[in-house]
C-alpha cells in the first residue's frame, strides 16, 4: 500500500481486478459502468489477458461461466438492466459451484429506468440473483478504496467457497474520483482441482453441470451447497459503524448512501441529537446478529436507501421488534442530501420526545 492514485471508482475496481490476477473480462457497455469495460479494453491486451465485448449481456455472462469452468479468474460488469439479463447465467454459475465476479453499478429502475445512481437492485442481489435456491456473496463498497479492497476479497472469498460474488456499487461510486492505493502483492489463486483443464489421460474427467433430473440427487446437492452458505454466514460477514458508541438513534445504510448518512449523523450531532451509523459491508451474508446487538442499545432506527425500501426488510428481520424501524428513501436516480436525512433523524428524536 504505497503509491496513491486519483481514480474513478469504475477504473479503480478494474485495476484492482487486474492486480488480483483476473485475466478474463467479458462485458457489454452500459452507463454508468462503461469505464470498467473501457479500462479493461485498454489494459487486458497489454498483459496477455482477454477483453471481450460480447454481443449481449447474456452472452457475456455465459462466457464467464465457461472461463470459470476452466478455472480462470473471470468477471463481467454491467448496470441494473444488464444485470437482469445476466441473471439466468448467474443462476447457472451458482448451480455449477463456480467462483466468478459480477459487478453491478446500479442505476435507477425498473425497466430501462434511468442512468443516475440507485440502490434498487438490493432485492435482486440478495434474494433472487437468478432462479432457484441460490445466493451470491454480495459486497457493498462505500468508497473508491473499498471498491478496490472488496474486488480482491470477492475473488478470494468466492474461490474459497466456490460461490459467485457480486460487487454491488452505484453510479455515484462508479463515477467519483478519490485517492486509492493497491496492495503490493496479491496472492495467486489457489489451484482448482475441479476445473476443466484436460485430464492428460491421467485422471477421470471433471464435470461441471447444473442439470440433475433426479429430485433426490438435486436436493442433496442443494443441501450441500447450503451447508457452505452456513459457513459463509459464520465467517464472511463484514460491517462498519460510525459514532455508535453513545448513539440513541441508529441510521442503517450501505454503499454511497452510507457516506451521505455519515454527513447526516454529523449534522444531527451538531443539533444535539445523538445519532450513529451502522453500515453493512456484506449484504449477503447480512450482519444480522451484529445489527441485532447494536439495536439493543438504541431507541430508534432509521434505514436509508436509494430505493423504495428493500434492505429495510433485512433490518427489520435482524432487529426483530427490539425497537421501531422507520425508513427513508429516494429513488429513480435521486441522491438524498445529508440535510434531508438529518431532518429525518431529528424528526425521529422529536417524535420520541
Amino acid at each position: 500500500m504505497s503509491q496513491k492514485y486519483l481514480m474513478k471508482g469504475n477504473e479503480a475496481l478494474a485495476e484492482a481486478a487486474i492486480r488480483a490476477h483476473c485475466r478474463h473480462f467479458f462485458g457489454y457497455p452500459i452507463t454508468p459502468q462503461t469505464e470498467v469495460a473501457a479500462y479493461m479494453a485498454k489494459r487486458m491486451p497489454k498483459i496477455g489477458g482477454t477483453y471481450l465485448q460480447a454481443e449481449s449481456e447474456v452472452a457475456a455472462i455465459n462466457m464467464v461461466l465457461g472461463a470459470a469452468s476452466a478455472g480462470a479468474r473471470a468477471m463481467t460488469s454491467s448496470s441494473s438492466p444488464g444485470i437482469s439479463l445476466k441473471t439466468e447465467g448467474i443462476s447457472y454459475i451458482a448451480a455449477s459451484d463456480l467462483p466468478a465476479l459480477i459487478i453491478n453499478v446500479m442505476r435507477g429502475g425498473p425497466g430501462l429506468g434511468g442512468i443516475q445512481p440507485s440502490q434498487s437492485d438490493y432485492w435482486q442481489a440478495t434474494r433472487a440473483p437468478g432462479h432457484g435456491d441460490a445466493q451470491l456473496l454480495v459486497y457493498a463498497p462505500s468508497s473508491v478504496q473499498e471498491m478496490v479492497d472488496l474486488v480482491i476479497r470477492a475473488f478470494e472469498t468466492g474461490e474459497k467457497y466456490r460461490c459467485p460474488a457480486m460487487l454491488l456499487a452505484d453510479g455515484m461510486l462508479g463515477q467519483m474520483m478519490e485517492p486509492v492505493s493497491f496492495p503490493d502483492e496479491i496472492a495467486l489463486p489457489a489451484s482448482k482441482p475441479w476445473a476443466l483443464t484436460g485430464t492428460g489421460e491421467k485422471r477421470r474427467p471433471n464435470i461441471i453441470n447444473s442439470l440433475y433430473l433426479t429430485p433426490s440427487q438435486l436436493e442433496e446437492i442443494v443441501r450441500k451447497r447450503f451447508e457452505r452458505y452456513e459457513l459463509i454466514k459464520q465467517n464472511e460477514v463484514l460491517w462498519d459503524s460510525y459514532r455508535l458508541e453513545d448513539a440513541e438513534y441508529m441510521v442503517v445504510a450501505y454503499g454511497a448512501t452510507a457516506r451521505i448518512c455519515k454527513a447526516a449523523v454529523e449534522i444531527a450531532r451538531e443539533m444535539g441529537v445523538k445519532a450513529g451509523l451502522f453500515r453493512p459491508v456484506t449484504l449477503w451474508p447480512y450482519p444480522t446478529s451484529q445489527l441485532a446487538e447494536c439495536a439493543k442499545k438504541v431507541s430508534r432506527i432509521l434505514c436509508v436507501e436509494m430505493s423504495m425500501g428493500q434492505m429495510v426488510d433485512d433490518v427489520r428481520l435482524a432487529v426483530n421488534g427490539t425497537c421501531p424501524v422507520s425508513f427513508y428513501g429516494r429513488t429513480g436516480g435521486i441522491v438524498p442530501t445529508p440535510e434531508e436525512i438529518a431532518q429525518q433523524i431529528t424528526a425521529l428524536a422529536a417524535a420520541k420526545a
Partner: protein
Amino acid sequence: MILNMLVAGFGGQGVLFMGKVAAKTAMLEERFVSWLPSYGPEMRGGTANCAVCIDDKEISCPLITRPETLVVLNTPSFERFTDAVKPGGRVFVDSSLVDKKTDRTDIDAFYIPSTGLAEENGLKGLGNIVMLGQVLRQTAFTGLETLVQSMKECVPASKAFLQEANERALRLGFSYCAVQA
C-alpha cells in the same frame, strides 16, 4: 473544509478537468479529496458540473448541495446554483459568458471575464484554467506551484504541448485583479 467547490458550465468548457486539477493538489499534499461529476448526456453538450471536496479529515459526503465556493461558466448554471451558495461563501462568474450579477449580499461575488482574457492572450479554450487561477488567488486552497504541478500530472502525455499554455493561463488568472461586487 479546505475546499468545498462546485464547478458548473457547459460540457466541453473543461468543467470536469478544472475540478480534477484542483482535486489532484490534495493528492500532492496528502489530504483527503473527492471529485464527483455529473455524468451521462450532460457531458455531451448539456450542462455539466463537478463537486470537489478537500479536507484534512476523511470526506464523509462527496455531494455538495450548499457550496462554499461556486464557479459558474454559463448562465443556466448561474441561475441554478447561485442561491445555493452557503452564506459567507463565494461565487466566481465568467463575466464573458454570463451577463448577470447576483443580488445576494451575504456572499462574495467575483466577476472575471475568463473566456475573454484567455482569448486576448492567445489561450483560446483555457478560460477554465484562467478561472482556476483566480479561485486560487481568492481561496488559497493550495500553493500556486502545487497547482502548476497538479496540472502537469493531469495533462496526458499526448497533450504535453498544452502544458506551457495551461501554466500561462493559470498564472494569468492568478494575477488578475477581479472587480468584487
